Structure formats: C-alpha cells, structure tokens
C-alpha cells in the first residue's frame, strides 16, 4: 500500500480515537463540581447519620453546594463527625443548621443546610452546632408503638 495513504488512514484513526475520548470527557462525564483548590471544609456532628455515605451531596435550598468528604466516629463524644467540603463560592452564616434528609421515600441520603441569620460566616474547619439526625424508620415505629401502648394504659 502507498505510504501516504497508509499515513492518512492512521492519522484519521488517531483523530477519531481522540475525538471519542474528548466526547466521553466533555459530553458524557463531568469533573467533580467541587475541586480541592476552591473549597473549604466544615464539620457537623450528628447523633445518628442513618445511611449517609462519603461523596453524598450537600444541598442548600435544593442546590448542590458541596459533598460529604469524610465520616468518622468520635470516641470521646460518641457521635458522628461528618466533614463537609463546600464550594468556596458559597458562604453560610455561623448559625446555619444541618440536617440529614432523604430524597424521596427510598432515595439516597444527603445533608441539607438551612442558612441562619448571623452576620459572621463559617470558615474552614468551623463546626456547625445545630444539627438534626437522620430519621431512622425503626426508631419512628418504636416510638409510635410506645405511644400507642401508653395511650391504652391511661384510658
């Protein structure tokens, strides 16, 4: 085969392959919305995190503002310390509250942030003081049955 024709075909093959890679990178995939360079971390302590997992989204008013970076058990206070990595474009007041919510009835769990009214904002390594744990279905049912039994006893 003629050498220039061969070169042309191989060139076309390489261009097509690189174009496919670019298509996968730009159209199909997305780089993680929050990169390490433009983010800050805050810690929220929960009594019970339910089924929360690392890389779960952190949302405020339904908009994703960051991700759960790390979850660990604190052996001194016996609660869960959840590190949230937030995009530095968003600043939250000092008295912001965090709650673990579920999207839909059986969906994934995420951390919802409810902004407070303080004039000072949360900085890197700050702690969120007001938190609300995940709703665990078994506890809910247990409390309901306990309440029913008490009602029955008082009548």
């Amino acid at each position: 085969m003629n050498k220039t024709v061969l070169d042309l075909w191989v060139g076309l093959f390489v261009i097509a392959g690189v174009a496919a890679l670019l298509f996968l990178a730009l159209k199909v995939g997305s780089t993680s919305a929050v990169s390490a360079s433009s983010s800050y971390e805050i810690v929220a302590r929960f009594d019970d995190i339910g089924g929360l997992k690392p890389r779960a989204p952190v949302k405020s008013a339904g908009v994703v503002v960051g991700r759960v970076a790390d979850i660990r058990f604190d052996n001194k206070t016996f609660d869960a310390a959840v590190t949230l990595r937030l995009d530095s474009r968003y600043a939250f007041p000092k008295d912001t509250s965090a709650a673990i919510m579920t999207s839909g009835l059986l969906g994934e769990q995420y951390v919802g942030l409810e902004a407070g009214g303080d004039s000072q904002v949360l900085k890197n390594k700050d702690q969120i003081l007001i938190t609300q744990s995940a709703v665990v279905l078994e506890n809910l049912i247990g409390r309901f049955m306990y309440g029913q039994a008490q009602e029955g006893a008082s009548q």
Partner: protein
Amino acid sequence: MLRQAIENLGNRTIQGVWRVGFASRFFFAMLMHSGTAFRRFGLTIREMYFTGVLSLIIILVSGLFVGMVLGLQGYETLQRFGAESALGTLVALSLVRELGPVLAGLLFASRAGSAITAEIGLMKATEQLSAMEMMAVDPIARVVAPRFWAGVISMPLLAALFSAMGIFGGYLVGVHLIGVDEGTFWSQMKSAVDFQQDIINGVIKSVVFGVAITTIALFEGYDAPPTAEGVSGATTRTVVTSSLAVLALDFVLTAFMFRGLS
C-alpha cells in the same frame, strides 16, 4: 508406572517454568529494543494501520449494537421501577467502566492478536527471522517492538471509540425509538459519570489490556513451532489465553479501582 507419572509431572513443571521465564525475558527484551520503534516511527505507523485501522469496522459496529441492546434491555428493567430517566446513566456507566474496555479487548484479541501471531509464526517458519539475524538486523527491534507499541497505542483509542459508539447506540434506541426525554438522558448521564473515577479508569484498563494482548500474541508467534500445525496451534492459544487474561485482569483492576465507591 508411578515413577513414570512423577517424571511426567516434573517435566511439565520444568517446561512451564521455562516458558514463563522465556516470556518475561522476551517482554523485557522487547522493552529494551523499543528505541527503533520510536526512532523509525514509520514502522509503528504501518503496524497501527494493520492492528488499529483494520479493527475499526468490527469495533464500531459491535459498539453500536451493544449500546442499542443496552438501551432496550435497560429500559425494560428500569421502567418497572419508574426510573427510565436513568437510562443514560446505565448505558454510559456500564460502557465506560466495563463493557467498552473489555469487549474492545476481546475483539482486539481475536481480530488483531491472532493476525500478529500468525504473521510472526509464519515469518519464523519460513526462516525470515533467522535471515534478519544473519544480516545483523535484530528481529525483536525490527519486527516485534513496533507491533507491540502499535497495539498499546491502538487499544485505548479503540476502547474509547467503542464506548462512544455504544453511548450513541443507546441514545438512538432510548431517545428516538422508545422516547425517553433527550434532556434527562444527557443530564442524568453527565451528573452520574465522573471524569476521574470512571473515564480515566476505563482508559487505564484499556491500556493494560493492550499491553497484555499484544505481549501474549507476539510471544506465542515468536515461540511457535516452525510448522503449519505449530502456527495454527499458537494462533488458537493466543485468542484463548488473551481473552482469559483480559477477563481476569478486568476483575483485578475493578477490585482495585471501584472498591471504595459504593
């Protein structure tokens, strides 16, 4: 009788260890003599035409059909849970993470690997390799190394083309045939597929498969007995061994890459 059996076992063990040693010496000799493959890049480009460009048709067509089947089957299952909007995610993740590299690797092994083995085996059988050595041309540098690098460069490109074609096939079936909303198809896919976690790992997989397949194919050809029967046996072994190697390596790589994800 018993002595005969033990002798047989010993002989097979020695043969096996010798083959493994020869294969690794062959692999390192190939890397050491790779200079020519880059200095005379025309040789590598020629081999890329035979391994890469000529595999394009089978890769593109299979990718399209695999994507279309994924679209149909995925929709069948997802619509039972009312989750047909996740069709794009299902198609893209399964192609980019697993099916793209693995199926492209299997096709590459049977399309290009067998051809490499047969070519080098015949070169050996007709004593072309010995003739090169007589002319002080190193056959590993002149014949083997360019084929190796051509395979290693072609494989990730073919896997990327397979995945892209498959996603296009899934899009055709999902959006145009079944009627999943086009916007949700692409946006759900984009939000679920991570560039570093999924796409880069898929590319790493395909590079590893490329190294494994071309090394096995070249070694089997170089090691083939110089007879018609020997070459045909070596060609069969190339396809079987490299397919098994791709599947086994895929399990090991997946275990390392996606262990901490779920």
